[in-house]
């Protein structure tokens, strides 16, 4: 086969040599626009796993690379005047220049033709059976046919510059430094006996405030050298075309078009904070060479299998890289965390390293995190974070696990059913620290379905008292009441039949912030007038008083999911022109009045939380930053925690049910508003809980073990003898 490789970076060179090695009858030419020794950038990093793949693919390159390797196993986090070290992360680094040198030499040895200082134009591709576009992130070949490849680009909100330094770091080092312009971070790692990579990154507005948008290369170096003088300890920063740029995450739906195939950065990029670009580029080369060897006469098939093989892997890294990048874009948010928690958060930022994986790598580090989290002296035995008690006012939860059984709409006239009691009891018996009820209505009109339990009557209180007493007697769980009013989502059929299907008969008149029906099928709710508003407040107050007498430990007010209080919060459902409608403050007025009424009626010694919509999941609804402002206000009024919810404000929202989909909202609210949070949303393992809690992304987790988990994915009552 005649193969033309455009681009002599790691992907192009490695692919070329692997093809020649596999079959010397191939004619392989690599075209590189630069001279052999001209290259940008400093060092690159590989993990153990990648090294294994490189060893298997070509032992000669592997040996040459590992001879020149810098190896280390520690990560240092310099933050808040402390350096926290975590070990057990085996990395190897080398200089990009050295790597390319090795690859070029090896290419020559196996008979790859290298043609330097040839800039290949996309409309004048060399005549070949296969054209490999290894021409980097700005690939002209790809850009010449964006629709064929289905290219999507995401430009990140930070600026970074890739410097070197003659200081040899002992570990992969993250440095955080703040000055009058803002917070800067450094990603630094050694790559040979004399030099380290030193990448400086900051948010775009900080970069502008610092005047770096106008600064030349020397001024930039001077600025950074001064800012990081203490960390550099007299060493200097070195430049190599180190301009400030924004990272672009690049995706392509398809990686080949006829006989043209994309590899490496031309096909995909993953934010540099997980340092995997070169690794992915070289793994692409291995995969492509393998499939071509397997199907030498079926090019289309080989290229298809190459894509099938590589795309899922690359997507996983891109997802992790996006999470990592988001962490660094928002790192200012974590300025309040203790250094040890800050470090734990940093190390688990991308989702690739969990609490458990961290423990495997560095048991002492995790022991230190866990004892810090448990408030025990360092070196003592501490439970994992999810089993650490939490105290709020006079209530102590035995652990951070919350169970929240789904309702089955089986109450009679608001009186909780026997099976509801059993669901709660089973949840409590699983060992959870807190059990949260389904929505309990403050009035008959506040029910979602006729089977919604309530607390508007003393007979309900009696039934609840029996349930709560039994839970307290038989388990260590504390019990939280979720108090709410369905508003415009009331008078619907049992949710076995779906949500928001209006009752055929026996419905009641609905009320809401504004007369907008939930679906086209729904009743038009009545806009609550002053008298109606004060009745609702009264209902909440009385229910809270009853709840206190019943003996609930915690009370949670439902201001989410488009129910009555939440309908006031969102501009999508509140178009009032009185003092309860308009800007965010007016829209918050009624939910606050509800909260105040409940807080006043509820014992000072017991915790009150709010289940709150963090985002409406639509482009026009409540924005995440508005939710932060709302929570700040709630906190001032004596709210102890926020239970993070999203969506359901309108039935045409655009939710996202990816992995741990509510955690980013919890992270933001907890760390920007400074309040405890309870988060669920597909939290299915104790490792996930430990990771979330230790990193300071939430304080409590709604735990939903998957079906088949003996801790009870189902809430069917199976008495244990």
């Amino acid at each position, binding site marked *: 086969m005649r193969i033309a490789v455009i681009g002599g970076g790691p992907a192009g060179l490695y692919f070329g040599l692997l093809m020649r090695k596999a079959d010397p009858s191939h004619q392989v030419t690599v075209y590189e626009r630069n001279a052999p020794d001209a290259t940008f950038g400093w060092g690159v990093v590989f993990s153990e796993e990648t090294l294994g793949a490189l060893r298997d693919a070509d032992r000669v390159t592997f040996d040459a690379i590992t001879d020149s390797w810098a190896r280390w196993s520690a990560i240092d986090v310099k933050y808040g005047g402390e350096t926290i070290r975590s070990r057990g992360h085996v990395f190897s680094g080398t200089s990009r220049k050295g790597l390319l040198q090795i690859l070029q030499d090896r290419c020559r040895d196996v008979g790859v033709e290298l043609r330097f200082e040839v800039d290949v134009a996309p409309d004048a591709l060399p005549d070949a059976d296969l054209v490999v576009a290894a021409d980097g992130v700005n690939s002209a070949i790809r850009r010449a046919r964006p629709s064929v490849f289905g290219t999507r680009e995401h430009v990140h909100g930070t600026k970074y510059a890739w410097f070197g330094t003659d200081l040899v770091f002992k570990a992969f080092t993250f440095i955080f430094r703040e000055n009058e312009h803002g917070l800067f971070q450094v990603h630094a790692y050694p790559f040979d006996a004399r030099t380290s990579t030193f990448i400086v990154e900051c948010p775009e507005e900080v970069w502008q405030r610092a005047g770096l948008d106008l600064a030349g290369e020397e001024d930039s170096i001077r600025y950074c050298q001064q800012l990081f003088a203490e960390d550099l300890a007299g060493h200097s920063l070195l430049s190599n075309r180190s301009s400030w740029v924004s990272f672009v995450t690049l995706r392509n739906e398809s990686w080949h078009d006829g006989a043209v195939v994309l590899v490496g950065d031309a096909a995909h990029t993953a934010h540099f904070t997980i340092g995997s670009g070169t690794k992915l580029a070289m793994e692409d080369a291995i995969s492509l060479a393998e499939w071509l060897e397997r199907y030498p006469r079926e090019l289309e*098939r080989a290229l298809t299998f190459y894509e099938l093989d590589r795309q899922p892997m690359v997507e996983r890294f891109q997802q992790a890289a996006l999470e990592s990048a988001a962490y660094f874009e928002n790192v200012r948010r974590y300025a309040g965390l203790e250094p040890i928690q800050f470090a734990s958060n940093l190390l688990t930022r991308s989702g690739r390293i969990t609490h458990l994986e961290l423990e495997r790598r560095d048991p002492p580090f995790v022991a230190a995190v866990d004892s810090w989290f448990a408030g025990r002296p360092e070196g003592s035995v501490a439970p994992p974070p999810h089993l650490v008690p939490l105290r709020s006012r006079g209530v102590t939860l035995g652990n951070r696990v919350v169970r929240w059984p789904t309702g089955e709409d089986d109450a009679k006239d608001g009186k909780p059913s026997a099976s509801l009691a059993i669901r709660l009891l089973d949840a409590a018996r699983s060992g959870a620290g807190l059990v949260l009820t389904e929505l309990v209505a403050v009035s008959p009109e506040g029910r979602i379905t006729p089977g919604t339990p309530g607390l508007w009557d003393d007979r309900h209180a009696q039934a609840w008292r029996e349930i709560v007493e039994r839970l307290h007697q038989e388990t260590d769980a504390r019990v939280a009441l979720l108090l709410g009013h369905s508003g415009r989502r009331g008078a619907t059929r049992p*949710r*076995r039949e779906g*949500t928001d299907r209006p009752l055929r008969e026996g419905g009641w008149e609905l009320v809401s912030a504004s007369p907008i029906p939930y679906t086209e099928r729904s009743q038009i709710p009545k806009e609550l007038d002053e008298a109606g508003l004060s009745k609702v407040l009264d209902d909440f107050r009385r229910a809270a008083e009853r709840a206190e007498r019943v003996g609930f430990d915690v009370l949670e007010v439902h201001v989410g999911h488009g129910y009555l209080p939440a309908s006031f919060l969102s501009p999508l459902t509140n178009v009032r022109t009185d003092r309860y409608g308009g800007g965010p403050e007016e829209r918050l007025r009624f939910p606050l009045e509800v909260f105040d009424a409940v807080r006043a009626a509820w014992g000072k010694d017991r915790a009150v939380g709010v289940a709150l919509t963090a985002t409406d999941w639509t482009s026009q609804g409540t924005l995440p930053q508005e939710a932060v402002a709302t929570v700040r206000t709630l906190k001032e009024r004596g709210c102890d925690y926020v239970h993070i919810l999203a969506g359901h404000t309108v039935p045409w*929202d655009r939710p996202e*049910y990816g992995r741990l989909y509510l955690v980013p909202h919890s992270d933001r609210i907890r760390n920007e508003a400074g309040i405890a949070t309870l988060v669920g949303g597909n939290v299915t393992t104790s490792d996930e809980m430990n990771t979330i809690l230790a990193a300071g992304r939430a304080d409590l987790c709604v735990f939903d073990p998957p079906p088949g988990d003996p801790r009870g994915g189902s809430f069917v009552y199976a008495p244990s003898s």
Partner: protein
Amino acid sequence: MRVGIGLPSTVPGGAGRPSLEWARRADRGPFSSLGVLDRVVYESLDPLLALAAAAAVTSRVRLVTMVVVGPIRATAVLAKQAASLDALSGGRLVLGLSIGARLDDYDAPQISRRGRGGRLSHQLLELPECWERGRIGPGTTASKGPEVLVGGLSGESFARMARWSDGYVHGGGPPRAFAGAASKARAAWRDHGRPGRPQLWGQGYFALGDQDTVERGAAYLRDYYSFTGPFAEKVAAANLTTPQAIIDFIRGYEDAGCDELVLLPTVAEPDQVDRLAGVLASL
């Protein structure tokens, strides 16, 4: 996990009477269901008519659409057809719905593509109202109407499924892809406060036989998915063409929590049913 089989109603040579013989054999075999696909602009059978014919020659298997493109059909007419199929089959219909993947299927019947997601939501809301007490009859076997599934990979699709249907129907792919979608389906179900859990249906393509059979299967998939551009090649490459590949696939889906996996044919010879039955027997 139950395993069903598809009708060759979209496969060259299958879109006619061969589908009937296929249905008879499937009904006698170890399969739990017969599945059909929907496509307007293609040489294929209408999915509901194909299942009506299948209903007449079978007595046991469930009849599942994977899926019917809802928004290109008037809701009351769709409700009527589904109720009819339910009555003709003795309550064996499972109605999978989604917005479909092809824009020309909207253009041909001159239905606007815009707002199709919202229209599907509306249909899901309306269908039970139509079925209620045989208003748009015949009366269905279950009073709430046939079981309804929803497909799609967007967050809105999962929400729609969780709000207004009985479960999720996945569009195909390796077990890992199914597992990811299943986890989202469960999360959406839980998020919407639905009791119990969603029914999870999966699908995959197969062709069993000699090299010629395998190649015809791949050629059909390339053609059927040609509108996706280069993706078609990937679908063709993933066709299950050996007993071991089918067994691995079934095990993978079972581990991923699938309730019912429907294996769709890519060639039309009825002996495919027997070959697949043979593979299942070896499990």
